[in-house]
């Protein structure tokens, strides 16, 4: 909306929400392409048919994108409530031979990485929220064994740093400092105090950023610390990358 109005592409403070005051101050509906893609089916088959498509007590259909270490990455239309493992192993074709699932992000890195042990989670709003994640766009990222979860988290945090518009302090400065801290960990420069600092920074970014980008930029690393703590601690405390991915020395 800001760009259409000829301004820098920066998020607005909310409220007011766009449905009340949006483009040029007028009520504006902003929808994802996925929402529009559902409209023809609803018009052709009707509301009741659509609702009946869900499984495991859920209603409707969901587009999911499967990417990462799977043999058949792609976009699939699945019944709402389908188990994550079904999507990864059946639709996505599972891992390369001999590799096992290590982690997955249900909705891109901003939903956080969950461990393989939680792959039975159902893809619907409530189940994913209960698992500490979110449904979001359901752009599922799959990690097989051999991936370093710190490396995955750093990659995602660096991406958020690059995409930050710079409007607000927590996201502009926070995403850079978070990238600095994680980069230090991958270079064997971590200290025990870093985890506390990172937690405080995550909290500030989550609570004070203007838009979702800053609010969720911490998710990759906080989820990885929660579910893969020993692996992360090996980097910070022992200056060792268990998967042998991180350089563990300064790269000039």
């Amino acid at each position: 909306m800001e760009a259409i109005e000829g301004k820098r592409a920066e998020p607005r403070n909310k409220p007011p929400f766009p449905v009340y005051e949006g483009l040029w101050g007028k009520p504006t509906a902003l929808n994802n392409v996925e929402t529009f893609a559902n409209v023809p089916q609803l018009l052709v088959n009707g509301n009741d048919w659509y609702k009946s498509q869900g499984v495991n007590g859920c209603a409707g259909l969901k587009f999911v994108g499967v990417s990462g270490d799977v043999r058949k990455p792609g976009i699939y239309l699945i019944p709402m409530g389908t188990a994550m493992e079904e999507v990864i192993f059946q639709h996505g074709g599972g891992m390369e031979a001999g590799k096992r699932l290590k982690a997955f992000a249900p909705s891109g890195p901003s939903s956080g990485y969950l461990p393989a042990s939680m792959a039975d989670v159902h893809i619907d709003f409530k189940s994913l929220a209960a698992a500490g994640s979110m449904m979001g766009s359901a752009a599922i990222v799959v990690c097989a064994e051999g991936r370093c979860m710190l490396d995955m988290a750093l990659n995602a945090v660096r991406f958020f740093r690059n995409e930050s518009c710079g409007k607000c302090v927590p996201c502009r400065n926070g995403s850079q400092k978070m990238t600095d801290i994680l980069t230090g960990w991958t270079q064997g420069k971590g200290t025990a105090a870093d985890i506390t600092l990172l937690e405080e920074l995550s909290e500030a970014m989550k609570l004070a950023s203007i838009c979702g980008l800053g609010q969720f930029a911490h998710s990759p690393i906080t989820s990885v610390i929660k579910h893969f703590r020993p692996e992360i601690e090996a980097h910070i405390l022992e200056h060792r990358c268990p998967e042998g991915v991180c350089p563990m020395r300064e790269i000039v």
Partner: protein
Amino acid sequence: MSDLHLTIDGQAVMVPSGTTVFDAARLNGIAIPTLCHQQNETPVGVCRLCVVEAGGRVLSASCVRPAEEGMTVATNSDKVRSVRRTLLELLMADHPSPCARQAQSGDCELETLARLDGLASSRFSKRLSPRGQDDSSPAIAVDHEACILCDRCIRGCGEIRNNFVLGRRGKGFNAGIAFDLNRPMGNSACVSCGECVVSCPTGALTNKFVVQTELGGEPAEVEDLLKLPYFQNVSGTFLELNRNAVVRRDFRAGDIICREGEYGSTAFYILEGKAQVYLSTPIAHVHTDGSNSGFLRRLGSRLLGRKQDRREDERDRRTIPIDASVDLPYDNPVAELGPGDLFGEMTCMSLYPRSATVRAATDCTMYEMLRNVLDIMQRNKNIKGRLDDNYKRRALEDHLKNVPLFASLTPAFIDSLRDRVELVRFGKGDVICRQGDIADSFYLIRIGFVKVSEDHPQGELVLNYLGRGGYFGEIGLLGMGSGGRRTATCSALDHVEVVRIGAEDFHRMVDAFPDVKRSLEAVAAQHLEQNRQRLARAADVPLDAFLAQGLMEAQSLLVLDLGKCTRCDSCVRACADAHDGVTRLIREGLRFENFLIATSCRQCRDPLCMVGCPVGSIRRRQSLEVIIEDWCIGCGLCAKNCPYGNITLHPFEVSVDSQGAAGHRAVVTKQKATSCDLCTEHAEPSCVYACPHDAAHRVDPNEFFRSIISGQSGVSEKTDAH
């Protein structure tokens, strides 16, 4: 408008609907810390320090969050305090503490908040790539390192002042404030109103204090200044901050206000009274005559004007350019300045010596100001409009007609130009037009120096320096270069103001005045041909580029054969003897093989001597040798600028009107710049004549270098003859 009831920190409060949470708290005595919010600007909610708990999933920035009925707000919970502290710690990680503001007045808002929060140091690592400083504005210092992107300056510049110069550049961590499309502040459209300085919470934008000795006179009262048409719309706060940079001075009739050749740093604005501006140095050049055919007869130097001693290639302009809105006539260099006139702009902006002496003709009141205040005046649209208008009404005609080429323009035509020409300012280093660009304007220089250079694969070649009264841009417009494109790059060497005449008006002029066109074309063709020849010669001779460009151009050179020279200095003494005791020869200089090139002027690739002459009296002849015009005021800047010591000042005693006593004459010493004239009046230069070891020779450079390159002795008895 209905009232809203909400609870802030346990306190029940009532505010009108439409109030923000920040204001609701403020109105009830609860202060919420903030950096980006000010009462006089639209809130933007970017620093996030004012976040509060208001019942949502995340915290809300209270400055932009409207109060709602029944809302419960916590402004100081543990959660809020912890987030706020982290944000301060993030900002302090990259803050150059103490920043300029903290150092100046101890009230950097960021450092104050951090101190109140007990934050001594930041645990976050410091920024790796510095964002730097911008020192280009004379009035405002910019330290991007201290900028926290609160956007207060941007709103001050835009919504308060309606100037819209400031904005944001870059994104994410590389975002910063920018002037126009990220230009240096001093070269931007900034009018130095000072609103951004007043808005800035940190030391990112601070007022520059001019370090200098105290100006004499009463500091001008801001209220008095604001009454003057020239200071209307200038920020009072800013004038207050620069209080000591502008003083009111009263002069009695006859008082000398400034003297030619003196260094200064101020400009004067005449409030009341009249002042006389004149040159006290004789309008003449140094002429050495006599004969050295016998030892008994000494050579003598005299001052001669161009009427008595016409020199080759001397200019015949009728006026002398000075640092004021008027030029002085050559024949009688006196003019009058009155109320509303500004003089000393070049001295003030670029610290050049005064170009003329100014004496109070009646009792006078003036404002004397330093660079930052003059800059504020010139950047203010209102003032600039008046100054420009003043110039167009009073000076444009003289200025144009004083360029001999334009002497035939009719007053009617100049009248038709008045409202069409544009006065444009350029900062040091700005490119005015670039080689290869489409030519769209013609320029006449009003103030400052412009460098004309060509780009070559080996680097830049300076073709010329132009000062006041100089013009450029005609070659491209006349289509003589390469299809209507610029043949050279013209850039500002210091504070430059040019009169821009658009292509349409230029063509109107050359169509209406065929003789102007013919002269322009003739001069341009000559320049182009010279440049072509010079390049051809430089490419031709496999010498070091500097030598090729410099020495090859000389008409003749003085060389000392170091194999024969015993360093007895007879040559230097002979030179002094020939020029009233002032030697123009220094036995030092470029060495080439076993020869010392001790010649006068090297016709440098980049003739630094010509930059800054307050009266434009030093320039190159067509032959590229330096000529000093009659109106040299002896300030010595060219001698100081010459890296080779080839320009010396020759003192003369002259009789002038005694100050304060009309009719009385006094003898004072005045100086004139001189460089080696190769004793062209004589069969042989005195230094060559005096050398007892046959080590000094005057040679033709082309022959000399060619013979060296071909391996022969550079100097033979034959090449001596000249």
